[in-house]
């Protein structure tokens, strides 16, 4: 049975009719849809077990705490982390990157360099600009070659003794490029730089193994991987996390407090001040369970086939340009394209009239758009519920676009 045949019935929203057509949802890279098990787990939590976590000494408090902490264990297994203490639950990828950038920023000195790449999402650019600001620190970027792959030769030239941080996406949210994480991290480590990987577009689609990747920090969101909004993960190698001074204070992140000072709590709670997203953690657990049941190897294979089919069909349409790596193995579940003579937003609006949801615009990656000399693209992205028929419908609709405006 095809993967989408197995999953389709689990996603209630896919029954929606949009503008008179069956919904064809090709915007999972922005946010995925949720299976019924995730929705039910969260509702059940609120209906039966909700209370605040950690210090509520009553039955509900204990249940909520157990459920919240179970999410951490589930994440640890899912990403191949060595210890549960290395898993910090955040509000999402942007939150996780900001947390690390803010804390690392305090350790930077004038003359230091932060190395990012030209294909980053703004959420992996701006926090580093902020960390660099007022400190005499420079942000530099590894260029992207025409085929959408990182210019590894240029990376070697940019990397040096001043490089303190190397931050990059595992999978580009526009080009779909899968970056050579292990290779980049090994080189960065050889000059003593800390590595931060934005896994927002990888965690939902690829099997993950933190040890094999060899990075110091890895960050992703729940809502792109079938889970709810408002929760994400910051994984840090224990020593890397321990070296970070917390920058956000509040309840739960402390052991002892006096009026003028405090002693920090242990990992990972040191980085989780305030009441955490408890129901969202429950939803994340259910999302991971769902993905694990399908098997991440199978998920990756399914989506790779969809991306390959999309590239082939769209390239055959006159006036369509497809961006990103040619080889399917180098590409995640994302295909960006443009149609001659049409603005990306008009492409998306016209496709929406046929029930097809795609993203259009600069995808929060303006430096990358500038590098290709464009203002935006349309983007189709995939998840476990998309079918080969979805891709055919997209290609057919795109082929008819140029006569419509």
């Amino acid at each position, binding site marked *: 049975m095809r993967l989408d045949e197995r999953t389709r019935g689990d996603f209630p929203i896919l029954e929606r009719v949009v503008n008179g057509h069956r919904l064809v949802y090709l915007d999972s890279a922005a946010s995925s849809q949720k299976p019924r098990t995730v929705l039910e787990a969260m509702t059940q939590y609120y209906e039966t077990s909700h209370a605040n976590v950690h210090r509520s000494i009553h039955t509900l408090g204990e249940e909520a705490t157990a459920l919240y902490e179970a999410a951490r264990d589930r994440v640890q297994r899912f990403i191949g982390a060595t210890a549960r203490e290395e898993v910090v639950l955040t509000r999402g990828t942007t939150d996780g990157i900001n947390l690390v950038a803010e804390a690392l920023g305090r350790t930077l000195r004038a003359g230091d360099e932060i190395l990012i790449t030209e294909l980053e999402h703004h959420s992996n650019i701006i926090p580093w600009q902020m960390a660099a600001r007022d400190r005499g620190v420079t942000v530099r970027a590894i260029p992207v070659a025409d085929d959408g792959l990182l210019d590894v030769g240029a990376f070697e030239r940019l990397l040096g003794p001043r490089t303190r941080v190397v931050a990059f996406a595992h999978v580009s949210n526009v080009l779909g490029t899968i970056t050579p994480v292990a290779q980049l991290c090994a080189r960065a480590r050889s000059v003593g730089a800390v590595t931060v990987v934005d896994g927002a577009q990888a965690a939902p689609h690829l099997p993950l193994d933190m040890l094999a990747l060899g990075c110091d920090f890895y960050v992703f969101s729940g809502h792109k991987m079938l889970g709810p909004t408002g929760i994400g993960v910051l994984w840090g190698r224990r020593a890397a996390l321990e070296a970070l001074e917390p920058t956000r204070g509040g309840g739960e992140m402390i052991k002892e407090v006096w009026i003028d000072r405090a002693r920090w709590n242990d990992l990972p709670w040191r980085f989780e001040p305030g009441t955490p997203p408890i129901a969202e953690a429950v939803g994340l657990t259910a999302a991971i369970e769902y993905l694990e049941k399908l098997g991440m190897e199978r998920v990756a294979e399914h989506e790779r086939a969809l991306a390959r089919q999309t590239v082939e069909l769209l390239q055959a349409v006159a006036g369509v340009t497809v961006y990103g790596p040619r080889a399917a193995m180098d590409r995640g579940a994302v295909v960006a394209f443009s149609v001659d003579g049409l603005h990306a937003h008009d492409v998306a609006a016209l496709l929406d009239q*046929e029930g097809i949801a795609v993203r259009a615009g600069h995808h929060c990656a303006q430096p990358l758009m500038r590098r290709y000399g464009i*203002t935006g693209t349309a983007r189709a992205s995939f998840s476990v519920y998309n079918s080969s028929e979805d891709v055919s419908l997209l290609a057919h609709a795109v082929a008819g676009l140029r006569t419509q405006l």
Partner: protein
Amino acid sequence: MTPAARVGLYSDTIRQRWRKPRFRGELPGATAVAEDVNPLCGDRVRMMLRFDDDGAVAGVRFTGDSCAICTASADVTAELAEGRPAREAARVTTEDVLAILQADIRPTRMRCVTLPVTVLQKALQT
């Protein structure tokens, strides 16, 4: 695609103005220029104005990188401003433009309509 939906989203006016804008291009000798960007989509519109001796808007042109709705709005905005005293031209509103576009603009695309109007106002303030 149903015919009704097509009319709703992109009116004939939008289509015509997108295909053949009347006010698109450079304006040599422009004395008032403004430009802005729609942060949502990165669209960019630049308005250039020239005035006659009485302070009326003698010429308007726009350039930019914009979608069909934004381009049509810029074209209509330019048309509404041209020939009017500067003070009157500054009173061109989004509602005026919408009345001419005759399309069912969704909230997510409203910025495409308002951007050229605000750029015109900025140019008139310079």
